[in-house]
């Protein structure tokens, strides 16, 4: 076997690579690479002309450095020079460098094109292949201009070698994709189709990709490929595994080629020619039969390859959607896979069955697997598989099983992964609406949805339930009763309050006969939730209240009282305030008749596409919800929901009253009173009072969304929009100060902890010196790479503190802990804390954490014992105003004596007994040791147990120390 030690093997490169591999840290690696880059640069710039071998070696090193993730900004010229070498290895490295590093608009393209031209005409097949690869990889416009006419000729020429044909086919595909206008159809096109008959399987494999792409764009011109593909497929499928020796993979004949042929056939409808069709059906049957045969090998590769073909065949069967027999067989086959022990197969079966469910021939067959799928939803350990199961349940749902499926999805929702909850909620809402036979079930389902997953219920969902309740007389009483009951729960979701408020405001009268839900009870129930709600909900509730005044005159006094109170009529939110003012006025001025007209029951909504379906479509992107599904829901919705007529009952007076409103509504106002101005204008739309309710995008917005989606799809980099991670230390965590404060009175403990990392601290201080032990624990089972820590003293601290440490090992094994020692010297007093930055890679992602190192000035205290007399004498000496710092603050912690004493001792000072005349008070004394000076400090803490307050006074010989200590300590008690 070839090894690196060959004459050709570039020893220098091998040495360099071992060096890099032996680098212990990222820094060492960068250092080694920079050294090498400098070396290569000087070689390239040197006077001495380099021979081909050295050029190749250096270009190869650059390539390697690039692949390690470093930017390369030179060497392109040398790589281009290598192209004209006659030695294969040199040429190959040159081309490789260019394919990997040159993007399509480089100015070097002309030079490269020249070299390619020479190689293409060289008649040397290996050189031709290299050149073709390069065109395919770079694929720029200029290359297309230069070679678009040349390549088809090479592809179909009789004397072209097989390997060159393969490269030429893929090369042409690339040019056709980047510059279709330059690739002219012509005499070659028919000959390309006949490559399907080529005796060499590799050529067929390559040509199929090209033909598939061409037939998608010009189906008629390439129609003949169908019969050719069928006969080729038939020959492969019916061959014994030994016939295609070289292209047999674990006893499966030419699996990749088979898949590609089946894929090509999916570009066309079923063949019209009976003979061709018969042959194809035979092939598909054979493939299905083979799945049932005992495997020829126990290797997983064998079954995977076989199943790859099977899944592709099933795709084709679904695509044709015309052979009931095959569809049902496919469904049964997939049903077997649903219980297979391979997760991959279960995933693919669920996915594939989803499309089968939409065929009228196999829908019933899919439905028989409902129990298995429900079980998958409950027991699969992989969220992506569960997601597929949920999709399939959604797809197989119809009137007969809707109740069961919705119930299962609802119960799954209680434990569903957060990532898919919103989509699940939409799906449940859509199914409940689409297949509702009795609408009380529908109302129950949606209210359950809000109860279980209220946070994920979007506006569209609760708008929709209200639309439906309003449009259907027979469910209104039930809805009122149900929301009333749901609102009894002590904690109910805000969305429930919204739906409840709206429905009771409209239909509360339907249940008011029962004394348990009398008008006042209803009102009190709603109002009990009022204060916990956000502004839009409160606005909605206020509208519900005014509706109550109309429905139940006996509540008028109570409600007016509520509206009149300061928290409403003087609310700082203008929207709420205005509603309160106007509703109050309206209820006191307007006669009962006017009130009844203004606050008339909402007219039915004009039926349009379900806003929820629109939302799901938007979420999944166009095409995710099939067109038939949309038609379906529109048809059913139209028939069942829009109980006919009634839409022109626009309460005109409402608009008159509301047009006095001056502020536009910031909220979705279901009662419509506020959204006056636009409504008055657009009287053509009968239901437009509820314009806010429909958040569905109009045609213009939908078009814009589609355009945006298309733009994103065209943008090759669309999936890469986030910025690369910064290597700079992150700013300190928001909780850094809080973490720091935990350590003012103690020296040991856990400084920081997240899901990956735990940092523990032990520290000891003497005089002006301190030693801190940091323990970094890896909480995961995966190694941390490039682990590094850095202590920095930004700003003034650099002159106040001296922190020394040694670098840590760059690798922290899973579950391991490493230790780092910091030596700290206090030069003079300081206020800020040094920063500790920790960086490492976890699974490739850079983690970057910055904390404040818990070094505070009090750590350098030496306790000083003194008598009462001495204390007060010194206290008086330190009487200059700036020497004293005082704070009066509320107790944050327990005021227990022992706890306080422990904290004061932890501070590092001496706690002086019998000094203060008031035994409740605490006094302490100490000297802060810094290298430059000593600072004497006296402390007095006066608790007031009754008021839960403290007064803290500090007097120090240096004023900056007083204020710093005072700030630090005020947070401790």
């Amino acid at each position, binding site marked *: 076997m070839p090894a690196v030690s060959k004459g050709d093997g570039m020893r220098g490169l091998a040495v360099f690579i071992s060096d890099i591999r032996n680098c212990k840290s990222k820094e060492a690696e960068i250092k080694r690479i920079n050294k090498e880059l400098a070396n290569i640069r000087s070689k390239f710039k040197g006077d001495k002309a380099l021979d081909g071998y050295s050029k190749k070696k250096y270009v190869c090193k650059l390539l*390697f450095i690039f692949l390690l993730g470093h930017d390369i900004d030179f060497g392109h010229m040398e790589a281009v020079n290598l192209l004209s070498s006659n030695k294969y290895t040199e040429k190959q490295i040159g081309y490789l460098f260019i394919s990997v590093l040159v993007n399509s608009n480089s100015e070097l393209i002309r030079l490269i094109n020249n070299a390619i031209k020479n190689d293409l005409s060289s008649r040397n097949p290996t050189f031709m292949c290299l050149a073709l690869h390069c065109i395919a990889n770079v694929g720029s416009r200029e290359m297309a201009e230069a070679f678009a006419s040349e390549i088809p000729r090479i592809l179909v020429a009789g004397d072209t070698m097989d390997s060159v044909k393969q490269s030429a086919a893929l090369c042409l595909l690339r040019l056709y994709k980047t510059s279709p206008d330059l690739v002219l159809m012509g005499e070659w096109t028919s000959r390309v189709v006949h490559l399907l008959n080529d005796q060499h399987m*590799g050529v067929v494999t390559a040509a199929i990709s090209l033909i598939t792409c061409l037939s998608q764009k010009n189906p008629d011109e390439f129609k003949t490929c169908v019969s050719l593909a069928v006969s080729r497929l038939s020959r492969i499928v019916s061959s014994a595994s030994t016939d295609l020796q070289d292209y047999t993979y674990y006893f499966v004949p030419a699996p990749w080629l088979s898949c590609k042929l089946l*894929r090509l056939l999916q570009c066309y409808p079923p063949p019209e020619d009976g003979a061709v069709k018969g042959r194809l059906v035979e092939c598909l049957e054979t493939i299905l039969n083979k799945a049932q045969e005992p495997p020829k090998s126990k290797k997983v590769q064998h079954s995977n390859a076989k*199943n790859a073909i099977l899944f592709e065949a099933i795709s084709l069967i679904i695509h044709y959607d015309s052979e009931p027999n095959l569809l049902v067989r496919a469904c049964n086959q997939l049903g077997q896979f649903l219980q297979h022990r391979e997760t991959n197969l279960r995933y693919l079966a669920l996915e594939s069955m989803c499309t089968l469910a939409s065929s009228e021939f196999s829908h019933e067959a899919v439905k028989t697997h409902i129990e298995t799928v429900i079980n998958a939803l409950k027991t699969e350990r992989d969220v992506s598989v569960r997601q597929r199961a949920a999709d399939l349940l959604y797809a197989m749902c119809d009137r007969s099983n809707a109740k069961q499926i919705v119930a299962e999805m609802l119960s799954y929702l209680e434990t569903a992964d957060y990532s898919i909850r919103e989509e699940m909620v939409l799906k449940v809402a859509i199914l409940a609406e689409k297949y509702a036979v009795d609408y009380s079930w529908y109302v129950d389902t949606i209210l359950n949805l809000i109860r279980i997953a209220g946070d994920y219920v979007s506006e569209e969902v609760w708008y929709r339930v209200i639309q439906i309740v309003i449009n259907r007389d027979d469910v209104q009483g039930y809805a009122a009763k149900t929301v009333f009951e749901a609102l009894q729960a002590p904690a109910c979701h805000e969305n429930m309050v919204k739906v409840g408020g709206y429905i009771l405001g409209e239909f509360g009268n339907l249940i008011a006969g029962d004394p348990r839900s009398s008008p006042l009870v209803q009102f009190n129930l709603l109002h009990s939730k009022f204060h916990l709600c956000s502004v839009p909900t409160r606005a909605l509730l206020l509208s519900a209240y005014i509706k109550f005044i109309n429905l139940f005159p006996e509540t008028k006094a109570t409600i007016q009282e509520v509206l009149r109170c300061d928290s409403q009529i003087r609310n700082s939110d203008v929207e709420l305030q205005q509603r309160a003012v106007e509703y109050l006025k309206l209820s006191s001025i307007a006669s009962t008749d006017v009130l009844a007209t203004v606050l008339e029951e909402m007219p039915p909504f004009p039926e349009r596409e379900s806003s929820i379906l629109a939302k799901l479509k938007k979420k999944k992107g166009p095409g995710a919800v099939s067109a038939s599904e949309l038609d379906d829901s529109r048809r059913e919705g139209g028939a069942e929901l829009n109980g006919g007529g009634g839409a022109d009952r626009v309460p005109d007076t409402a608009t008159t009253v509301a047009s006095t409103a001056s502020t536009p509504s910031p909220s979705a106002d279901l009662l419509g009173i506020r959204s006056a101005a636009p409504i008055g204008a657009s009287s053509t739309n009968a239901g437009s009072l509820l314009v806010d309710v429909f958040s569905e995008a109009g045609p213009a917005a939908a078009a814009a969304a589609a355009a945006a989606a298309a733009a994103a799809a065209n943008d090759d980099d669309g999936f890469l929009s986030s*910025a690369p991670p910064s290597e700079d230390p992150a700013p300190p965590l928001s909780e850094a100060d809080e973490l720091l404060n935990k350590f003012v009175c103690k020296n040991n403990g856990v400084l920081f902890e997240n899901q990956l990392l735990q940092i523990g601290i032990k520290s000891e201080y003497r005089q002006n010196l301190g030693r801190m032990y940091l323990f970094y624990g890896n909480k995961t089972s995966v190694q941390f*790479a490039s682990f590094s820590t850095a202590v920095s003293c930004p700003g003034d601290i650099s002159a106040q503190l001296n922190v020394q440490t040694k670098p840590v090992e760059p690798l922290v094994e899973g579950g391991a802990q490493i230790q780092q020692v910091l030596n700290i010297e206090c030069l003079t007093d300081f206020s800020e804390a040094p920063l500790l930055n920790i960086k490492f890679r976890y699974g490739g992602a850079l983690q970057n954490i910055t904390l404040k190192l818990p070094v505070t000035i009090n750590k350098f205290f030496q306790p000083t014992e003194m008598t009462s007399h001495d204390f007060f004498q010194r206290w008086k000496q330190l009487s200059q105003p700036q020497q004293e710092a005082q704070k009066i603050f509320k107790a944050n912690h327990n005021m227990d004596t022992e706890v306080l004493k422990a904290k004061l001792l932890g501070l590092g000072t001496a706690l002086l007994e019998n000094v203060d005349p008031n035994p409740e008070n605490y006094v302490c004394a100490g000297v802060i040791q810094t290298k430059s000076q000593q600072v004497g400090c006296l402390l007095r803490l006066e608790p007031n147990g009754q008021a839960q307050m403290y007064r803290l006074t500090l007097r120090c010989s240096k004023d900056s120390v007083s204020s710093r200590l005072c700030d630090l300590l005020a947070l401790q008690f």
Partner: protein
Amino acid sequence: MIKFVLMVNRQGQTRLSRYYQPVELSRRAQLEADVVRCCLSRRREQCSFVEYKDFKLIYRQYAALFIVVAVTENENELSVYELVHNFVEVLDKYFSRVIMFNLDRVHIILDEMIQNGHVVETNRNRVLAPLSALDKLADG
């Protein structure tokens, strides 16, 4: 079609990357880190196909080496999954030593098998033909 092929180790370091759709150099590191994290965090019993943004990742693990292939929606997952294995078997057949030392050759092999995002050759002997020719040349 295939969007890119990555070979990464357990630490998430990229050993080989080949893109079949242009991705700006500056964005590759971020993309690769993201993709690798996505695959490394999965357990063995989870399936080998991951939906990632608007495409799918198909990955396979060989000891400490992960091979990740990103494909567009319409690609046959199992066939790509086995393509990876086929590729690894070719590497096994050719190399007796650490692949890192022969990255250029790994590239040649990959280029023989996948071009432009499409499978072009699956026969092991033919994949290795250019390299064998090359080695003969060097020996001679």
